[in-house]
């Protein structure tokens, strides 16, 4: 009983509450700005965090993580540019939702699903960490490859009607993912003598370039073209949609319940994928989306603005907040890049994440759990308060909005790795994105293939190395067979469903 009091005392100190609030606010803001991500904010704050006491420090970092997982949806829905990589999938239905006249419903759905997913994985973290971690450890290269194959095949699901263009975009993404070092031998490939590309193409500049800078370039060209022809017509672009009817855009508990199935699917998939070491929030969002579509009663509406398509990936990516801490706190193996940064922060505080972390730091860890819980509540509060504010930003005319986004993207890209090369990549990616937009190619598959491709290649080659070069090693695991089976079933269903449309 005494212990519970000390924990509560530790967790509800004003210092902790303030830093947690600061973290969530920062997270939502940074998440909403394309070019800045939660990971970046955490990495930049690491030296500062060192000077704080452990519980407020961790509270702030976890607040940033949660906030940014939701924040990315704000810009994804408002103006079609994902604020964080994890929001790429949210954009698929979120942005059409906005165009169809219910942005507020979409954003509130994103918020509520985020918080639900987050809460769900936190509960699992606290009560089932050890068994879940043991299951996660069952994933070796063979199983990972099967998971990635499943994810890559689902790219076909994401593409509505333009399978050829979608797969082409995915192919480009895979190709870009191959630039850099071979995962096994370490030789450089596809860098064309540019030694700055030895480490490969970084994700954030590519993402922001392809989505935001490309749009900026197109809008700029349109403006320039118009001014050239001396046309004075006002550009409405992505600003206030005419015919917006607020009465059709009301969020209610009923709406939340209608998307609850998708939210729960996202929470479960997100927790599961988040607990896999190295999987990450984008993959979690993607897998959640695919799974929700499988089990939905209206799969044909995915990609057209259906709220389930917003709820699932948002629940999925937020579920990684709690889940990625599972392998970190049980074995010291981070479940995602963000968890790795939080692990570094723990280490800097003298807390060694791993099997003995609870024995060695009982009070701090339990207080941390309490803080994780109420940070979710804060996320809900801040999200609710900040949505109208940040969403109004989408009402700004695109010729002011996009240059601002571009500026943030430039700053954020440079701040992340102190590299000018990254900025060049941002610009080239923008060009690529602009070309693809003009050709009506979908951009989502490109980025997703870019994220998943390298992981898939590494897993395949590791599996083959372990199996001594025998391809049969890929089928030696029941988990892997399970994923392949689901993939095959999905493809069959997809083909039949396409036939139905024809």
């Amino acid at each position, binding site marked *: 009983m005494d212990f519970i009091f000390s924990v509560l005392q530790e967790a509800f100190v004003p210092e902790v509450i303030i830093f947690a609030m600061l973290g969530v606010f920062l997270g939502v803001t940074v998440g909403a700005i394309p070019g800045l991500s939660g990971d970046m904010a955490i*990495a930049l704050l*690491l*030296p500062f965090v*060192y*000077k704080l006491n452990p519980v407020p420090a961790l509270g702030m970092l976890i607040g940033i993580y949660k906030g940014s997982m939701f924040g990315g949806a704000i810009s994804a829905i408002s103006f079609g540019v994902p604020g964080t990589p994890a929001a790429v999938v949210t954009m698929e239905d979120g942005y059409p939702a906005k165009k169809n006249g219910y942005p507020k419903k979409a954003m509130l759905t994103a918020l509520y699903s985020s918080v639900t997913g987050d809460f769900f994985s936190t509960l699992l973290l606290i009560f089932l960490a050890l068994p879940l971690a043991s299951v996660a*450890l*069952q*994933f*070796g*290269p*063979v199983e990972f490859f099967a998971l990635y194959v499943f994810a890559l095949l689902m790219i076909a699901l994401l593409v509505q009607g333009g399978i050829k263009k979608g797969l082409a975009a995915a192919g480009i993404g895979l190709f870009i993912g191959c630039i850099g*070092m071979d*995962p*096994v*031998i*370490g030789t450089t490939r596809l860098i064309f003598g540019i*030694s*700055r*590309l*030895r*480490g490969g193409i*970084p994700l954030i500049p590519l993402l922001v370039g392809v989505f935001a800078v490309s749009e900026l370039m197109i809008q700029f060209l349109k403006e320039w073209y118009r001014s050239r022809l001396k046309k004075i017509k006002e550009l409405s672009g992505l600003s206030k949609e005419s015919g917006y009817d607020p009465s059709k855009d009301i969020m209610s508990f009923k709406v939340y319940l209608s998307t609850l199935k998708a939210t729960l699917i996202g929470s479960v998939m997100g927790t599961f994928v988040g607990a896999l*070491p*190295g999987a990450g929030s984008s993959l979690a969002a993607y897998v959640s989306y695919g799974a929700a579509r499988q089990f939905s009663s209206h799969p044909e509406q995915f990609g057209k603005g259906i709220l389930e398509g917003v709820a699932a990936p948002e629940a999925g990516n937020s579920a990684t907040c709690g889940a990625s801490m599972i*392998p970190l706190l049980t*074995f*010291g*193996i*981070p479940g995602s890049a963000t968890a*790795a*940064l939080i*692990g*570094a922060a723990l*280490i*800097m505080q*003298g*807390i*060694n*994440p*791993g*099997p*003995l*972390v609870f024995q060695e730091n009982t009070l701090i860890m339990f207080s941390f759990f309490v803080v994780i819980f109420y940070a979710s509540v804060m996320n809900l509060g801040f999200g609710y308060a900040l949505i109208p504010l940040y969403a109004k930003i989408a009402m700004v005319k695109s010729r002011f909005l996009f240059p601002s986004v571009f500026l943030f993207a430039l700053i954020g890209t440079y701040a992340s*790795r*102190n*590299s000018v*090369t*990254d900025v060049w990549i941002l610009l080239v990616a923008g060009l690529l994105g602009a070309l693809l937009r003009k050709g009506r190619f979908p951009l989502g598959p490109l980025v997703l293939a870019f994220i998943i491709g390298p992981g898939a290649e*590494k897993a395949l080659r*590791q599996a083959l*190395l*372990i199996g*001594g070069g025998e391809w049969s090693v890929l089928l030696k695991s029941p988990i892997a067979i399970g994923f392949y089976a689901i993939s095959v079933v999905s493809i069959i269903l997809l083909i039949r469903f396409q036939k139905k449309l024809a």
Partner: protein
Amino acid sequence: MRIMRRRLNFMMLFVVILLLAFVSVSSFAAEYPKEKAIRFFNPYGAGGGVDISSRILASAAQPLVDQRIDVICMPGAGGQEAINFVMNQPQDGYTFLVTDYGPLITTALTEKVGYDLSDWKPVFQITEVVPTFFVKADSPIKDVNDWIAKAKAEPNVFSVGHGRYLSVPHLPLIIFEKLTGIKNKHVPTTGGSEALAFVLGGHVDIGASVPSTIGATVKAGQTRALAVCSEERVPSLPDTPTMKELGYDVVLPAWYTIFAYKDVPEDRIEFIQNKFIEALNTESAQSLAGKLNVDLTPYGSEKCQGIYNATIENLKTLLSDLTKK
């Protein structure tokens, strides 16, 4: 009265000139003003071993040097961006490189880079990171000799998860196999964490990593460390024999060392060396490092130079043998 006032004026003028002279002389004397920050550039990403060790160092040293110390991560181009950046900075004694031998030496020996290895002067060492072989607690491999015996009986059966290709845990494995003639399957991973995960999950038989990654699981009894590849036993793994003890000369520890590029004045290097070694010997640095299974090795410039040269020779031999294969 007027004379008094004039005298007073002169006095004041004199005092003011004296003060000005004093101030300007002292700022001339301070060749290394403390307003500028000392910067350590790290070719690895945030949160990694080098980053964390540097930050422990920076916070312990900050009160001693009384100026800002920044640790800046520049992981671009496989670490070459950080190296190139430090090379192109004015060599004023404020900008240093903090790294292990991978980006600095291994890359220079395997690819074309814009510097000579002799251009870099080690200033001091923070810690030694010792490659360690480990297995799951219930593994049938009892110890190193058992590993050798079993591998000789059936070659290419055991899989060993090590970090990246030619990384700090990988090279000792190569040396070990050369010495004993055994063959294992090498499985590259993204780093120690992944190797640990694969070992715990039973996907690979043996792992190669460093004490700070596996220390906690060893203490908890989930993994067993078979051997460490250093001259002497590692304090955080006191029950683990060295390869040398067991009769195999596999000694290739990685060091995290601060380097200055050529042209940084000798006296500045000495000043930095002394202050930072003092910082590493403080109570706070030692206890923090202890908690994290990091063993601090505050070696000075001369000792580091010897270690640096030895590592270069070692790697040259090793890598040329590899390419001959």
